[in-house]
């Protein structure tokens, strides 16, 4: 066998070298579970049906909310996936003791899962566009918010995943999180129906902040300028701040203590 004289190193963007190759691995793994990709839409579809029956006039808002919710739950899958790879397969050891950096490992899982579960979300976007006929600005805002909410949830998922030593406990935490972030606050329903006194809370939680920004873009004036700044700031800081913390945490937790 030929072999390199030294270990192979990633040359291009070394800290994130190998992300795409590892993401492709994850994508491939996920695609074998095609049924799970469809069932990932169950909560959204059920809530949309509720809204369509109970308050048809909010259906458009609920559609946008369903997209935001999907971005959140898509990111949150990293919790389950990263814990499974580590606890059940010990493959974290295979990948972390290699030129793939810990942050590339984290991002590889996140991107792979993202790509696998993206198609039904795109379907939702197409339906939303057909129903709402929203302008390009809203579409761009939507794309940016989806990425930010996903990054937030994926980062949170990865950090939490490192706390688990067996898989049994995870599902209850996962359901707690998506209910707390995605179902309870005004994601599927208008911000105006949420208690006025708690409005800042809704504007600080990334999914409901993203939903509020989208609702505002359809119905300008819904948010006061400081509220727009608060919501946009919350989403941005939560996504990129937590991402940076996760990069740090991925490096730190790669070497158990």
């Amino acid at each position, binding site marked *: *066998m*030929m*072999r*390199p*004289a*030294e*270990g*192979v*190193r*990633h*040359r291009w963007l070394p800290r994130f*070298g*190998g992300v795409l*190759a*590892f993401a*492709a*691995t994850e994508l*491939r*793994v*996920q695609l*074998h*579970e095609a049924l799970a990709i469809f069932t990932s839409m169950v909560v959204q579809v059920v809530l949309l049906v509720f809204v369509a029956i109970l308050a048809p006039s909010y259906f458009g808002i609920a559609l946008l909310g369903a997209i935001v919710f999907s971005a959140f739950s898509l990111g949150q899958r990293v919790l389950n996936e990263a814990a499974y790879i580590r606890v*059940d*397969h*010990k*493959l974290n*050891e*295979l*990948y*972390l*003791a*290699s*030129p*793939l*950096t810990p942050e590339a490992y984290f991002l*590889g899982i996140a991107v792979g899962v993202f790509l696998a579960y993206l198609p039904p979300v795109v379907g939702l976007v197409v339906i939303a566009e057909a129903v709402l006929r929203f302008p390009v600005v809203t579409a761009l805002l939507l794309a940016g918010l989806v990425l930010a909410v996903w990054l937030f949830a994926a980062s949170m998922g990865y950090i939490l995943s490192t706390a688990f030593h067996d898989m049994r406990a995870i599902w209850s935490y996962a359901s707690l999180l998506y209910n707390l972030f995605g179902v309870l606050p005004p994601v599927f329903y208008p911000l105006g129906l949420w208690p006025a006194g708690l409005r800042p809370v809704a504007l600080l939680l990334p999914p409901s902040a993203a939903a509020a920004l989208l609702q505002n873009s359809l119905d300008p004036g819904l948010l006061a300028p400081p509220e727009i700044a608060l919501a946009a700031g919350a989403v941005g800081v939560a996504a990129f701040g937590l991402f940076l913390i996760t990069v740090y945490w991925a490096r730190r937790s*790669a*070497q*158990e*203590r």
Partner: protein
Amino acid sequence: MPNEPLLAEDVRKVYAPRRGPRIDALNGVSMSVHRGERVALLGRNGAGKTTFLKIAATLLAPTSGRVEVFGHDVGRAADLVRPEIAVVPQEGKPFFHLTPREQVYTYLRSRGMSREVAHDRGERALAAMELAEVADRLAITLSGGQKQRTMVATVIATGAPLLFLDEPTIGMDPFARRGVWQSLRDLTREGSTILLTTHYLDEAEALADRLYIVERGRVLVEGTAATLKQEVGGTLRVTVPQGARLTETLRTFGRVVPDGDTVHVIVDPGRLTEILGIAVRERLTATVGPVTLEEAFLRVVGRSIDDEAG
């Protein structure tokens, strides 16, 4: 890279679990592995082998002590260590929804190898682990040993300068184990260095240039299989079934190991005819074989257990 592949000095590890008492897993382990060597870490369950391997592979922080891989500290310079190593984790399993071919290839790609090199090296490793027949089946459909072979194939395909293999041949049949031995010999011939653990002492003897026996987080002895076997007190073992009644006589020839009604005597070749003569006179059969590393292991570790017990 002029530095030693692995150098460890006085490594200690205390696990402090959230519940339960603290565990002193390593109590001052020092060892070195030279370039191109195959070194085996032996020891009873819980002796600290996996703990040491994980520390050396940057996956676990030592409580104190120093570990360097090619001159880089595994804690402070983990980023410089990781490109040089590859690990077969104890109880690791391949992705169930990848085939062995995909597992090996995508792993090499994620390590930064080009498509051609990854393909080439992957195919060779699959062939070496005799996985060709099952290379396109999802890992979830493979037998236990085939899954383990996939893990080993994934890691040997890297040809990394330093490989850590934690019980790499567990669950493998004798043919597959020999396949692993051959691949590991090929790797060291090409310049890689290997540290492995195993509970199969024939494997350690066949494969390792040097051995460390660890017990309760300490290195008990270090040496080649031949030097360790000297600990047993002779180079041949005479086994006398139904020889229990001769125990006292046989004791004058060397160390006696009772085993039910059977007696094993460890002797030097010079006294062989004499002892066989006694067996013939007593109308008993006797078989002669070389002392095994397993006997040396039992002796060395057993003595340590006795000492510990006071």
